[in-house]
């Protein structure tokens, strides 16, 4: 076991550190974070639109007219459906910041590059016609939402790389000395911006004569589909969870690191569900594995599903140290924050506790996956519930108001409890014995231990 810890320290940690520090991945993660508040706001409207109350639909229609749902969901169209635009700007902005070049210009150029790669054609089926025709003159919502996410990310990185290389080589329009600096600055972005748009324009022209026809088609075929298939599978989910737990076992924020890589995939899987759900809240949803699947059903109490552990510690631990820690950890744990446990117990670098810490989430992934795949439990509906939402509530909301979501969370909570329990008891016994020994050495009576 000590060797295992050494391997973690010497091999896993440095690699994880490098991945987490990789500036393009960081920019992607930070750029995607920019869209999260919007998605949560959009989700609020989704939840109101699909409250699972009998007769709700008719009641709303009576008060607000038969198109009440369409009107209510306007904000969804301006949050979920423009995800790629926000990400396009956000990723470029964050990346430019890291290169210490003008982030605002980089964001604007990236946005233009993304739209340049997007054909302004919208599918339209005329009344009575069978075939869908493409109508020009509109920015297609289809591509500026989650389906355009990968194109947006790729072009944000490519365009910002071109932009900063040109700026750093100082190829900019030089104006005579008398020109005010603010005016000069406004011209700085001209040459790099023209270069970026020039490149994207030429590539689009080339793609148009190939069978792919557009950036979006080629990326969805070569990247979106294989990555979603991998990231959305049970196997992919187990690998992801295993990595998160291994990283946390060394004390690194596994979810932030793995999520940084998997985030875009899980986000687009989530949004596929949302689009189906929005059409019919009782339809069979395409995906099980989404960001919510991990945040809400697996990590109940934080990475490692430690809420059960915190509660058991508070109620059952005999050592004073663990009892106090349980009391301290329970409140943040309800909101899925568990650093007091991982670092305080500690689980980090603790050969005994690492075993259940890795085992529990893997078991929960398998149980939850099977429960959702067999239709016993509703799948995440694409409603973006913040990861800090307490369990039971979050499972209900994230499935679009289905009680089975909460029930699975409760089941998972007890599974976590059952696996942690024997390990906790061994650890508790050790700690209690240490306290006993300390108390005897220092003369017994009333020795308090520093927490």
């Amino acid at each position, binding site marked *: 076991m000590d060797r295992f810890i050494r391997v973690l320290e010497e091999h896993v940690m440095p690699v994880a550190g490098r991945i*987490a520090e990789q500036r393009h991945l960081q920019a992607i993660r930070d750029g995607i974070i920019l869209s999260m508040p919007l998605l949560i706001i959009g989700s609020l409207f989704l939840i109101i639109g699909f409250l699972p109350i009998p007769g709700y639909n008719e009641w709303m229609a009576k008060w607000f007219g038969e198109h009440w749902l369409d009107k209510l969901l306007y904000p969804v169209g301006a949050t979920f459906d423009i995800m790629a635009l926000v990400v396009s700007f956000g990723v470029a902005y964050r990346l430019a910041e890291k290169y210490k070049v003008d982030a605002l210009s980089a964001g604007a150029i990236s946005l233009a590059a993304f739209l340049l790669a997007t054909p302004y054609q919208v599918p339209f089926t005329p009344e009575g016609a069978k075939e869908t025709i493409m109508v020009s003159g509109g920015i297609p919502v289809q591509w500026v939402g989650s389906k355009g996410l990968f194109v947006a990310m790729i072009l944000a990185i490519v365009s910002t790389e071109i932009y900063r290389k040109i700026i750093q080589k100082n190829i900019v329009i030089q104006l005579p000395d008398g020109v005010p600096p603010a005016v000069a600055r406004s011209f700085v972005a001209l040459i790099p911006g023209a270069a970026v748009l020039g490149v994207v324009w030429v590539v689009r022209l080339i793609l148009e004569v190939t069978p792919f026809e557009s950036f979006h088609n080629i990326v969805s075929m070569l990247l979106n589909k294989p990555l979603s298939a991998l990231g959305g599978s049970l196997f992919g989910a187990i690998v992801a969870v295993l990595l998160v737990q291994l990283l946390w076992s060394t*004390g690194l924020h596994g979810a*932030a690191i793995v999520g940084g890589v998997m985030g875009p995939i899980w986000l687009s899987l989530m949004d596929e569900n949302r689009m189906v759900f929005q059409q019919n809240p009782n339809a069979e949803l395409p995906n099980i594995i989404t960001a919510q699947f991990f945040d809400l059903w697996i990590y109940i109490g934080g990475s490692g599903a430690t809420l059960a552990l915190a509660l058991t510690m508070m109620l059952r631990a005999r050592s004073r140290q663990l009892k106090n820690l349980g009391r301290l950890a329970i409140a943040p744990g309800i*909101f899925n*924050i568990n650093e007091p446990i991982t*670092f*305080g117990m500690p689980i980090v670098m603790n050969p005994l506790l690492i075993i259940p810490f890795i085992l529990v989430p893997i078991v929960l992934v398998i149980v939850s996956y099977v429960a959702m795949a067999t239709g016993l439990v509703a799948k995440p509906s694409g409603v973006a519930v913040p990861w*800090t939402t307490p369990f039971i509530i979050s499972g209900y909301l994230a499935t679009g108001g289905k009680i089975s979501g909460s029930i699975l969370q409760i089941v998972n909570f007890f599974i976590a409890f059952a696996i942690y329990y024997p390990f906790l008891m061994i650890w508790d016994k050790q700690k209690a014995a240490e306290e006993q020994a300390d108390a005897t050495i220092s003369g017994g009576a009333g020795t308090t231990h520093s*927490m």
Partner: protein
Amino acid sequence: MNILLICAAGMSTSLLVTKMQEAAKERGIEANIWAVSADEAKSHFDQADVVLIGPQIRYKFAAFKKEGEARGIPVDVINPADYGRVNGAGVLDFALRLKK
């Protein structure tokens, strides 16, 4: 005394902030302590006298250290045990020692 704490989302460090503020108040130390997430941290460096980062993002230490050196601000990683037990007084001591 301005102490900036950084962690992945600024959540778990905000726990620590409360405890550190209590400890500072007890000792009558005038301290302004706040927590932010790693991605928004940079813009807060200018207001800080000391920067402490959570152990779970110590892979970012080198990058933040550089930011700190550019401004002459000490930057260090919080001891995992103090972090886990939300030892406000201990971390406050640590910050005060760094400042010296």
